[in-house]
């Protein structure tokens, strides 16, 4: 069991880089903008531009590329399915392979590549966001961005708190899962072999202690927060303020430039 080591999304990698030092608000907004761009792109030029940009961001973040790819493991499967479906279903243009009713045509190949790129680019960008931003910063940024919604009685602070607690406990629960798996392995549970039903049954000795532990933790956390006088978001001040810097201005410039180039090159 080494999913602990393969779990990249939601895991912060501390480095000192340009991307790490960006304000989380600008990173979040930029991710949104980038998503729009990815769906706006419609020819080789525009996709190529985005791909180059993605490489540049990865380099600027100083996150090892191999590690980023490994983190994308969970979506490989979806990517492959998308490619196969588009190869088979989308028709048009020159015919490359013809075999009875089955054919692979130019439009299919093109669409498959575009779609694979879209999915890959979005997931990579999302992973880069969580790899370079601490969960704390991320939720702080989200809370500030969504603050205007408070007027419409949306519990923004509570949502942000829930999100940050959830993210904070992902590594803890993973570690706990790992520990429980090891403890049950030490009692002779064999997770790797045997029929499917048998293996599903073996989840019980993991899931129950995990739930019990999660409830215990939740109760302890609630108690600890109350003991320190937590009463919700009203009038709460922050220890760490978010500040925009020249980096964020630069990012805004890059975004505008990217948008203009895209508008120019797309068809």
């Amino acid at each position, binding site marked *: 069991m080494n999913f602990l*080591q393969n779990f990249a999304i939601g895991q912060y990698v501390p480095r000192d880089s340009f991307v790490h030092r960006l304000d989380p608000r600008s990173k979040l907004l930029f991710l949104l903008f980038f998503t729009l761009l990815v769906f706006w792109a419609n020819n080789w030029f525009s996709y190529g531009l985005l791909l180059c940009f993605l490489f540049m961001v990865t380099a600027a973040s100083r996150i090892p590329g191999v590690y980023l790819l490994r983190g994308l493991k969970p979506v490989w499967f979806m990517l492959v399915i998308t490619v196969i479906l588009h190869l088979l279903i989308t028709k048009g243009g020159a015919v490359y392979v013809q075999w009875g009713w089955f054919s692979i045509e130019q439009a299919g190949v093109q669409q498959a590549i575009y779609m694979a790129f879209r999915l890959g680019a979005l997931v990579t960008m999302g992973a880069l966001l969580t790899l370079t931003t601490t969960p704390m910063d991320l939720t702080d940024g989200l809370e500030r961005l969504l603050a205007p919604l408070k007027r419409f009685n949306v519990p923004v602070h509570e949502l942000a708190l829930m999100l940050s607690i959830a993210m904070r406990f992902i590594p803890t629960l993973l570690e706990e899962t790992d520990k429980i798996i090891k*403890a049950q392995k030490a009692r*002779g*549970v064999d997770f790797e072999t045997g029929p499917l039903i048998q293996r599903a049954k073996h989840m019980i000795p993991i899931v129950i202690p995990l739930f019990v532990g999660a409830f215990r933790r939740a109760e302890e956390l609630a108690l600890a927060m109350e003991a320190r006088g937590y009463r919700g978001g009203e009038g709460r001040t922050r220890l760490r303020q978010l500040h925009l810097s020249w980096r964020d201005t630069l990012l805004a410039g890059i975004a505008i430039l990217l948008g203009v180039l895209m508008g120019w090159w797309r068809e």
Partner: protein
Amino acid sequence: MQITFENVSYRYAVGTPFEKAALHGLSFTIPSGAYVGIIGQTGSGKSTMIQHLNGLIKPTEGSVQVGTWRISADTKVPAQMRKEVGLVFQYPEHQLFEETVAKDVSFGPLNFGATPEEALELGRTALDLVGLPFEEFKDRSPFQLSGGQMRRVAIAGVLAMQPKALVLDEPTAGLDPAGRREILDNIYQIHQERQLTTLLVTHSMEEAARYADLLLVMADGKVAMMGEPADVFAQSERLRELSLDVPASVDFLTKLNEQLPPDKQLPASLYREEEVLKALLQRLTQRREASL
């Protein structure tokens, strides 16, 4: 069963930014039937080391010999090894999951192919061993027990597999002093009755001194010291360098000896609380008799 580590190194998360070496070339031998205290600061590699003993993790380099099994980086771990080496993790009560104590305790034996009747019988013996009467506890939910009782049930769950070696990672963490003493006395009794090879990971020098025949001191993923308790405690300077302490009894004896003239000093090889107490009482009675 004899346990030998040969130049064992272990690295966590190889090939990620989180890669970290935990053990550096460990080599030592633990004779069959020994009670070994494993001491070291948090992060010294104790917990990583003991997980090698039943193949939960395999050495990145070097090999581990447990009884007749030899485990190195690419060996497949035999299922039987998990049965023969019982591993009790820290806070073992967090692994309880069954509806009743009896079911939870017989979970291990069932996994190793015992029939339900045999497993229940093994569970009964194990519960009695840890001092929980089977008839009283068998139908209770493990989640309604006290902390100390839950821990005993979890330990019984490992003992029920009838291991030949028992490895305990801080079995007394978070218990009150009486509970600590009781559980450790219990484990020592089981160690003797079943002639187990026992490894006790602990932070407490007192606990190590009371039971162990052999001490293994770890620091920074290496063996810092190994030997009989008296020899290890004699090197108090080295222990302090490792941010560890000598047991209070040894400390007391050293300070007392400093106050006494050389010919009246108590033997410095004493380290168990009871031994020191006995020697002291003897000396005091002698003095009183002499003055009479």
